[in-house]
């Protein structure tokens, strides 16, 4: 198992290096100049001064080695062109909200998906089953930003059952810890639900198929022969049968969830990586865009790694590979 873990960790590190290099190359080799003055009143000398300040007057290979060294040794992603803040600080502040949103969405997605999948599996080919299958296809097909916009318009603006945006109320710094947590929860539930909804359909279909499949296996028939109740067969043994597949799905859904989080953050004005990245893109803030790309890659690689390791723990055949 240790060799397996080490192998996976090494592969993840190599993958991260490749992502970093590609992202840097894409920015460095793209035509143009991020510091060219867009305002006619800004003298060209100013751009020269800033170029020297940010090290852009050096040849690209030197820039790359310096950048990689700073990132590798000190996790120093340079300074934002727009705000001058250390990029690591900008993203460090933006990461927790994104993790919270993605985590809550993951939870919503599994709770909803598994619940609906089991409901459908109880009565295969019934109206309920058909309803779940159709609904899961529909939510899978709907783009997150559209669902998000509609949710905000109907639930927040129209009915006032949720805040229309942000992670906290205005001036929430004055709230006590319990009230602050509740305030965040009140802001979290709708974006998490919207984000979780798209993948919940997929999980519902997987759960349903796996659980129905299980009933036809020898283990399923044996469970029934032992006189176990229908609900126990489905909820305990059926779900255990579906678990590895569902976990695998988590590693697939991590990148989708992350890209979905970017969209949801913009729609719900959620102050995470997605919002920070959009602000950076709008203002041509290359160091932040570069680092946000890398952070995204780290999150996806880490999620895949975690799913791989969990899967290996659940299924010995994978460790043996």
């Amino acid at each position, binding site marked *: 198992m240790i060799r397996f873990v080490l192998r996976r960790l090494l592969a993840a590190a190599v993958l991260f290096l490749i992502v970093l290099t590609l992202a840097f190359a894409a920015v460095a080799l*793209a*035509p*143009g*100049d991020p510091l*060219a003055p*867009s*305002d*006619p*009143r*800004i003298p*060209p000398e*100013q751009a020269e*001064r800033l170029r020297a300040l940010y090290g852009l007057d050096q040849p690209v290979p030197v820039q790359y080695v310096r950048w990689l060294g700073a990132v590798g040794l000190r996790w120093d992603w340079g*300074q*934002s*062109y*727009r*705000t*001058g*803040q*250390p990029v690591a*600080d*900008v993203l460090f*502040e933006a990461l927790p*909200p994104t993790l919270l949103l993605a985590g809550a969405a993951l939870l919503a997605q599994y709770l909803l998906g598994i619940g609906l999948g089991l409901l459908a599996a109880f009565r295969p080919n019934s109206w309920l089953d058909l309803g779940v299958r159709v609904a899961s296809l529909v939510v899978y097909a709907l783009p997150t930003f559209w669902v998000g916009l509609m949710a*905000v*318009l109907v*639930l*927040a*603006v*129209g*009915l*006032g*059952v*949720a805040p*229309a*945006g*942000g992670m*906290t*109320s*205005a*001036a*929430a*710094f004055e709230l006590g810890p319990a*009230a602050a947590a*509740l305030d965040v929860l*009140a802001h979290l539930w709708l974006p998490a639900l919207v984000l979780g909804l798209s993948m919940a359909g997929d999980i519902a279909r997987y759960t349903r198929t796996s659980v129905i499949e299980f009933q036809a296996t020898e283990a399923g028939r044996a469970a029934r022969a032992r006189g176990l109740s229908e609900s126990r067969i489905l909820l305990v043994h059926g779900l255990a049968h579906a678990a590895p597949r569902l976990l695998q799905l988590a590693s697939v859904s991590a990148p989708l969830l992350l890209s979905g989080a970017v969209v949801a*953050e*913009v*729609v*719900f*004005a959620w*102050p995470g990586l997605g*919002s920070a990245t*959009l602000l950076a*893109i*709008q*203002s*041509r803030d*290359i160091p932040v865009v570069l680092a946000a790309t890398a952070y995204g890659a780290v999150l996806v690689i880490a999620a895949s790694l975690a799913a791989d390791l969990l899967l290996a723990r659940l299924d010995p055949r994978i460790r043996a590979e």
Partner: protein
Amino acid sequence: MRRRRWRRSLPIQSHTLERYKTDAVYDDSVLALRLGAGLAAALVAGCAPDAPRDTTRLTVGMRFEYPTPNELIVPPTLGHKAITSQFLLPLMDEEPDYREGPPSWNPALAETWEFSEDRLALTVRLRAGARWSDGQPVTADDVRFSWQAQTDPDVAWTFATAKEAIADVEAVDERTVRFRFSRASPTQLADAAPEAVLPRHAWGERPFGEWRSDPGWFFENPVASGPFLIENRTPGRELVLGRNPEYFEADLPRLDRVVLRTAADGAALATQLLAGELDVVTGIGAADAERIEGRPDLRVHAYSSRQYTFVSWNTGRPQFEDAATRRALALAVDRQAIVDTVWRGYARAGSSPIPSDVWARDPELEPWRHDREAARAALAEAGWSDGDGDGVLERGGKPFSFELATFAGAAARWDAMQMIQADLRAVGIDAQPRRFDPNALLPRLLGNDFDAAVAGFAIDTSLDLRPTFHSESIGGGHNWAAYANPEVDALIESVAGRLDPQASLEDLHRLQRILHDDQPMLVLWEPLSLAAFDAELESVTPNALSPLANLEEWAWR
């Protein structure tokens, strides 16, 4: 008691929502949610959901994150200046009277000022009783320190060259400061006055060389001279301004607290305003303004931005080398249609790089009217004809075909370019709109390496057309069109050389008429800036100088 305004029931405008509302099944299912969320809201707020409005507080939404109180170390933006000027005052404030004449100046930290006879010295007397929020007096040393910071190469302030004509800033006594100029110019006050006076006693302890490495440091030393001070900041989310008790106008500001909230998307901000979570939103789009206009409890304020959007025709390309062809292009493009559809009326058709609500605009300048027949005739006269019958004109064997470039990101501009393409197609010209990353396109424009490009500029108080139309700004400057006209050069020089801007009015009119006839750029439209706010607010008067102008006077009715 804190207010939870998102719990307030709001009238539903959209027809779609009306339909949902009458759907009983939907209503029932929503009721449970509503109860749950209402409970949570009440828990958080600790009070009844429909609490009365807290009239001491205001929540503003902006598509902008405030990175540092130090304006010298970040790229200059209107948004940054608007916020900084709430707590760091300049010597003088520019009046938003650009419609009536050259700028006049209001005293801020300065009480009086006077030029020497040769206009090479400006003596400023500081306001008696002006104090920093920590109780220290604002002194002449602070003014000198600010000038040193503005011109220090390590600080690398974007507009450092604006201070070139200031040879020295001398602290005569605690309340008197003298600016010494190397030359007299019409912009001397604008060169000396409008930047924030910085607190030497608080910021002077940090060497200039370290200013750019840690912009967050300035939040830790937030000394204020203006009506507000920084009370709290949550990076990426909000900046909270509180009342500065040391402010020299004792009964201002009228609000105790202003919360500035950040979001990356304008539509998301407009939605929060509609839901009652924000009281003011600046910088919204035309579609959102239209959504908000229908609401009786909200107001949309459309005001001059002193900006204009244009097509720059590269006069170095054979298609655009002659003014006759460029004039024909102006006749072919229906700018009013763009204003009406893309901008939904929140813009004006343009005709000059000096926008229509600036005092020096030539009032007799008529925009080229849209006239397809006249455009066809003018093109034929300029030597263009469709010899091979493919629907595209040719001249000298070359088809009238070109790339119409713009920066990616401006959706309205891109929509307008589709309309321009159709207008040009109708007179036999093949324009191919293309979007580029700004980092890639800007160097091409500066190097005059493009066919035609759509972009926007803002013009400031100085009305300096040198960067955009003087021949010395070709190749590296913003004269993208590579337009060279000795008469224009001479007029720009003479405007810059006169001490009284009002005396340049005739030259400025003449300049605009030449540019109108020569058409190196086709001015398409002047966008209006849009702010929306709660109708219960009074004294909200955003202008081209600041979306938060006069914030200290804003109050709830």
